[in-house]
């Protein structure tokens, strides 16, 4: 399916990204779905691309490693304390902890 010769497969491969992104009209979507039902190669392309995109999106949703987050939080604390007016820093430090 990497280099399909059937014009129907070629057309599907050209539009499959738009299909996955909801960017096609109803008629074109239906034609792609009919083609995918008739051609196992085309169905495999759609499934493979959907899995590929899903894998990338899962990565974006995953929290960054804990040690990276901890370093980021420490940097933020240092920056904000350095930028905070000295008076506010002193009053914050003198506030008794509950």
């Amino acid at each position, binding site marked *: 399916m990497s280099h399909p010769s059937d014009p129907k497969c070629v057309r599907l491969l050209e539009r499959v990204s738009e299909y996955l992104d*909801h960017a096609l009209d109803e008629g074109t979507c239906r034609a792609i779905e009919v083609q995918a039902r008739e051609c196992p190669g085309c169905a495999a392309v759609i499934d493979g691309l959907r899995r590929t995109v899903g894998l990338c*999106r899962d990565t*974006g949703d995953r929290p*960054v490693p804990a040690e990276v987050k901890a370093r980021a939080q420490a940097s933020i604390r240092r920056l904000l304390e350095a930028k905070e007016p000295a008076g506010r820093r002193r009053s914050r430090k003198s506030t008794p902890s509950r």
Partner: protein
Amino acid sequence: MTKRSGLHLSDDGADEKSAEYARLVRAAAGGDREAMERLLLRAQEAAFRVSLLVCGHADDAEDVMQEALLKTYQHVGRIREPEAFRTWLYRTVRNACLMKRRRRVGEPARFESTDAGDEREDGRSAAMDVADQAPRPDELALNSWLGERLRGALASLPARYRVIVVLREVEGLSTREVATVTGISEANVKTRLHRARVLLKERLEGV
């Protein structure tokens, strides 16, 4: 044209994420320390993911995070369009990545944008030719977090495709936002994204 949804993938969340950033920016600019902390953390996390996946080096990612931290803090105080913050952030991170690539030892001395045509005839990135070094412990941890297979497949993409797929699929930017960040047309973003997806699928499947 009637468009439809259903079993497909969607980028509807992009606008909502931009709106979330804008809310945080307004609150932080108004003196809300907690909002500032959350905004800075998000900016650093985005910088880490993008720089690691686009540049491929953990050391660079840490530096890009620091740059995102300082620039975001400075930018929030004078921002006029909070809704444009998200694209500003990713443009800033992308530029920092470009500078890192430029300075990295062993890479070409001349400046190369991520849009540069570094694809060889076989579709693989020229960076693939660089000799591998034994992975350091932090690299192993990153591979474990990200998935060595996906990281390797992304690294093998030509840079001009890699940056598009990272911004669009990993970070969830809309096509319009990716076009703004990279300075290319939306039509070009769509074309590159399609090619990137197909190449990435082939690399993941070992074709």
